[in-house]
């Protein structure tokens, strides 16, 4: 471990402090940095111009190439600072079309996926998609995060309805086979090493970890069951590491489904959620490991 002091800026937005579990996790990061002799300061958007004063930047605000967090990441990277999440990871993980195209190219087992553009919204093509993937299908906008912008469609009408909404922002969408499971594996990976493993349970009667309550704007989230990383299936961890390898060497949360004893990647997320008492429950050292990576 590098013993010299590293100045770490943690880029956050106000919403990162609204959930006490996330707030506690941020405190844990700060504590882990300080016990190792590093400086750890929260950096808000008003202080972006202070980035050059730091040696490393750790982004906890939501990332997307169109958000301020990307400006922070790209600025830090351009200035030669160590940054998690790095701009390339944000670019690939923030756009699921990019990600699935890479999985296709590098033969990473993933949910069967078809890309569609606006010209594909005609009867013959939709029929062919339903024939290939079965009914219902899952339509995914490339900018999906926190289970949003992922919807099911079982008929042409709902397919067109969902696709038209998602096409407002992206000219290409992903359509996937519907694979209902009682939970999704979540494998936290940092620089080619498994940090933590959890099961993200799907709420009863729903098909996503986070699902909207009927008729209400609020979300209901499934439970998170944490495992010691050494107790998780090796094949699961191997697939998670393979999927991350085609993206980069940053911090990722890999979602994997287990279907008939086989693992398939759902998606790889940069900027994965880390909530105190949840992802860290069986792997408390994850804070120290992330800080160590930033300070290295």
């Amino acid at each position, binding site marked *: 471990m590098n013993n010299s002091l590293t100045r770490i800026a943690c880029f956050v937005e106000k919403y990162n402090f609204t959930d006490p579990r996330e707030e506690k996790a941020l405190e844990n990061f700060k504590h882990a940095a300080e016990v190792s002799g590093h400086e750890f300061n929260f950096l808000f*958007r*008003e202080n*972006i*111009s202070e980035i050059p004063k730091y040696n490393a930047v750790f982004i906890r605000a939501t990332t*997307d*190439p*169109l*958000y*301020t967090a*990307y*400006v922070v990441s*790209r*600025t830090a990277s*351009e200035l030669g600072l160590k940054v998690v999440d790095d*701009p*390339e990871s944000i*670019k690939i993980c923030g*756009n699921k*079309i*990019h990600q699935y*195209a*890479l999985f296709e*190219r590098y033969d990473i087992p993933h949910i069967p996926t078809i*890309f569609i*553009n606006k*010209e594909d919204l005609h009867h013959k093509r939709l029929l062919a998609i339903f024939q290939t993937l079965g009914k219902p299908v899952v339509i995914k906008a*490339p*900018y999906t995060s926190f289970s949003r912008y992922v919807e099911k469609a079982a008929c042409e009408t709902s397919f067109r309805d969902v696709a038209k909404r998602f096409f407002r*922002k*992206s*000219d*290409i969408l992903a359509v996937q086979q519907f694979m209902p499971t009682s939970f999704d594996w979540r494998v936290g990976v940092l620089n080619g090493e498994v940090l933590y493993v959890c099961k993200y349970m799907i709420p009863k009667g729903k098909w996503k970890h986070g699902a909207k309550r009927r008729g209400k704007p609020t979300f209901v989230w499934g439970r998170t069951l944490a495992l010691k990383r050494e107790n998780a299936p090796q094949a699961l961890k191997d697939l998670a590491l393979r999927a991350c390898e085609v993206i980069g060497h940053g911090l990722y949360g890999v979602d994997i489904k287990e279907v008939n004893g086989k693992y398939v990647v759902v998606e790889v997320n940069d900027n994965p959620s880390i909530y105190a008492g949840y992802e860290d429950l069986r792997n408390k050292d994850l804070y120290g490991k992330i800080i160590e990576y930033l300070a290295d």
Partner: protein
Amino acid sequence: MLVVSNIDLTTKLPTMKPAAFLKSSIKEATLNLNNDYRYMKTGYYVSMHAEILGNPVIPSSGNIIDANRTPIMLLKASRNGIPVLPYLVTGSVKQIMATFSFPVVVFAVNPFSYDGYKTAKNRSGLYRAVKSLGMNYKFAVCTQPLIGRMISFKSFFGKCELDDSLKKISEKVYSIFKIPICKLHVQQTEGNAYLCGFQPVKKDELLPSDLKVISEEISQIMNHGEQLID
């Protein structure tokens, strides 16, 4: 070299439509010609697809994102010798007023606005600009002092028919970002020009004379086999 274009060119050079390219696996150096290279638009996906196929491509998907995010564009431009004015990324009007005196020019840094800018001559004008471009203070904005007159012009392969200082900026921006078709916002003072902003060109803004310039450039690139190295 493969030319993928959503624009009807005046040359007889063979081009491929973006939709056809996106469904193909052609492994060839690619020139992606599009009036709109914004992130998640077809122009972006063509470059991304070419990169995934392993093709050298102009422009790269990374440059597309960088050019369209004003603070990153300004940072990269200044590090490569293009004159830019100081800029501040923030959502706070107070901070802007503490940093710059009026007038100022404000650009959006949000996922939805991609064209134009607003100028503010006083506090209330600045509040209006930040509220509007920051989408009700939800997103940050990028502010620069306004010391000259704002000029917006189209640039094709780094070329424009304007005075030398603007020509120089246009060429330099192309050499850094390699975006063949774009619109640049520049501040001009006596003797100096400063790059301020970048935006896509609307299809109906492309005049027949512009199409001719673009087509001639492509013919030259095809004849001289310009290296597609980014």
